[in-house]
């Protein structure tokens, strides 16, 4: 079983919705159809199941065009799970699932037989919905209802499961429940094609992604191949940082902003950071139009990765090594070129004590220095009181104490006249 979408175009009246889409889906694939609102995802899904008829091109399943199949054949091939199902009637969950057997009925008058009953039971077992048998469908929670609808789709005994944003109205528990269920079904050989909105959910669960934009197929491949910052900027017009999800190592996308709120003015601020303490400050500075730099940070430190993603110059040291003299000198050079220096709330050990010394040097050179949460100095002092002493020293010599990112922005602006 293999699906080939060939040169498919579709229009509502004169509005072209799909433009020359070609895409192949192998048996057992779990494909997410993605793209901004109005990109044609749902229309493509509807063309697949022959609910809409393409203007040009078409859909082949094992080389047989879908539009030449009977309604019954199509119903036994594709089962559809919509976004939501109406609840203004009192069908029980069992009756809902039993409706999946309609394509298998021999005639209009034949009622359900033993094989229908066992197919329904099997489908409800696989989706964990047996306990809802006698409950009214409308009385179930959103996630439970969606599982019942998936059970109905399974009772249809299809080759391919089509889902239209199956998790869109669910809370996070419901989302994961449904996606885990789909992954299980996919694992047992069912081909799944789902319209999805959440990039992180899709990259975590789906093997392949087809990214649509303005009716065209823009990118198709694994999540790693498709979800690049460039693709996402081009298609969603959102700046993102792409990381690996620490739990699953799937691609994880962190949105930044659609556009800068403040035009860049390029005032240079050097941030002394490390251990993840500088991240929010750096991105906050960028958003406020500053041109920050960072140092000294070990390569692979999360502050290092963030600075790289934000294209911020950063003075680096090799992983787990002490700040070398070379790095320290480069750091001082950055300080000299900057209009202000920020000491973020980093833990201080023998390796990075030089970062505090650099701050003292900055004061000596007449640069305004801002110290984040000076009062926590004692807790993050791992050099026997030297760090606390240096920070106290900074404050007594005129460094400005700041409490959080917002406070920093305000005081920076006051001091630098921004």
């Amino acid at each position, binding site marked *: 079983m293999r699906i080939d979408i060939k040169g498919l175009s579709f229009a509502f009246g004169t509005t072209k919705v799909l433009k020359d889409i070609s895409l192949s889906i192998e048996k057992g694939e779990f494909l997410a159809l993605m793209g901004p609102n109005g990109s044609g995802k749902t229309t493509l899904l*509807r063309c697949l*199941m022959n*609910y809409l008829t393409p203007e040009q091109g078409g859909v082949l399943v094992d080389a047989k065009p879908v539009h030449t199949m009977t*309604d*019954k054949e*199509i*119903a036994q091939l*594709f*089962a*559809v799970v*919509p976004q939501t*199902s*109406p*609840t*203004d*009637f*009192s*069908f*029980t969950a*069992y*009756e809902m699932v*039993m*409706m*999946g057997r*309609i*394509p298998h*009925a021999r005639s*209009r*008058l034949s009622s*359900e037989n033993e094989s*229908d*009953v066992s197919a329904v039971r099997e489908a409800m077992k696989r989706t964990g919905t*047996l*306990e809802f*048998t*006698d409950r009214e469908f*409308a009385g179930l929670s959103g996630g439970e209802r969606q599982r019942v609808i998936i059970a109905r789709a399974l009772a*249809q005994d299809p080759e391919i499961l089509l889902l239209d944003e199956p998790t869109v109205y669910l809370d996070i528990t419901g989302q994961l429940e449904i996606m885990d269920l789909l992954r299980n079904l996919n694992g047992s050989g069912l081909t799944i094609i789902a319209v999805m909105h959440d990039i992180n959910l899709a990259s975590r669960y789906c093997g392949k992604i087809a990214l649509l934009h303005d009716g065209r197929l823009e990118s198709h491949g694994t999540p790693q191949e498709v979800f690049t910052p460039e693709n996402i900027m081009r298609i969603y017009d959102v700046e993102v940082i792409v990381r690996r999800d620490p739990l699953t190592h799937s691609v994880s996308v962190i949105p930044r902003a659609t556009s800068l709120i403040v035009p860049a003015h390029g005032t240079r601020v050097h941030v002394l950071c490390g251990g993840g303490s500088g991240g929010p400050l750096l991105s906050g500075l960028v958003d406020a139009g500053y041109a920050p730099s960072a140092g000294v940070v070990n390569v692979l430190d999360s502050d290092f990765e963030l600075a790289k993603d934000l294209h911020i110059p950063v003075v680096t040291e090799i992983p787990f090594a002490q700040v070398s003299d070379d790095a320290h000198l480069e750091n001082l050079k950055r300080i000299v070129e900057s209009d202000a220096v920020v000491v973020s709330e980093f833990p201080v050990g023998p390796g990075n004590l030089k970062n505090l010394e650099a701050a003292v040097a900055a004061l000596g050179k007449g640069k305004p220095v801002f110290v984040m949460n000076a009062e926590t100095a004692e807790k993050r002092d791992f050099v026997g009181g030297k760090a606390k002493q240096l920070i106290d020293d900074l404050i007594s010599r005129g460094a400005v104490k700041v409490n959080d990112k917002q406070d920093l922005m305000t005081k920076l602006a006051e001091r630098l006249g921004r």
Partner: protein
Amino acid sequence: MTERKNRGEDNPRARIRRKRAIAIIAIILALAAIVFICIFAGYGGPIGPSDQGRYITFQTAVDILLGKNPPNSDYAVRIIWDVRMPRVAMAAFVGAALAAAGTAMQAVFRNSMADPFIIGVSSGAAVGAAAVSLMGVGATISLIAQPSLAFIGAVVTVFAVYKLGTAKGKVYVDTLLLSGVAVAAFLGALVSLMLYISGQNYYKLGYWLMGSLTLSSWLWVGVIVLPVILGTVIIFLYGRELNVLLLGEETAHNLGANPEFLKKIMLAVAAIMTGVAVAFVGIIGFVGLMIPHMMRLVVGPDHRVLVPAATLGGAMFLIATDTLSRSFIELPVGIITAMLGGPFFLFLLRQRRIRGGRQ
């Protein structure tokens, strides 16, 4: 918990079937009982007062029904065979038609407020009937002209509403619904205008507009029996498709039903069967709206059992209310159905709210 599980383990299909069979048998028995009671009820007895000294005994009535005409029972035979029986039969078929068509319309419109008149049947028929009154033809001609023109008015109106709610061969139910409302409002004004001008025929038309089975005859029954039975059977045969149509057209399509075809055939069937009923007896409200609701509470939403249940229930309801309407003074039955139906419907709505149910 284990008890719940055990219940889930036995065969739910067998359980559902058992429950449905019991419900349908109970409805059939109740209908039979009501038919008998209502044939026996009325002026002249056996249930009810004597009619100018004439009284049918219980024994005579039973004998007549069994086909043994006792001596000196001409009066009783005429009352039972030519007055009450056609009237009960007419009530049964009209009630069945309205309830079955109402069930179909509620599924097609996926709206529990839909009734068979929603697509303009009643307003169209009223224009036809009012036109006859306005022309001022004689009583004999109007006996044939009124139902004929009413039926034509109904069918033409439904066709117009259908055209307004359709684009490129696709039926858009929400547009259809609004078109029906707008056309009904326009035609309603037209009927009022004709009523205003028609003067002396005002009374007769008013009676028709309120819905009445007074003039029922075997001829009427003969005309409506075939469309009503055929229509009901067609709706029943599409029960499974109507079920999935409730879940949305996309889902219906995916389960092998053809929503466009289904909507068209249901609209056509409902228009013809209610059109022919309304043509004779006028506008009887609330049966088509209420009976499907009541029966849904009794047998559940599955149309394969709901359609027969509503058909029988509609027949039962109209026979009973018509008997009520002729038992005191001869009231138009439409008044009784609305007076009983309105409050009852409100009661159902409140019940659902109070039970924390859905809107």
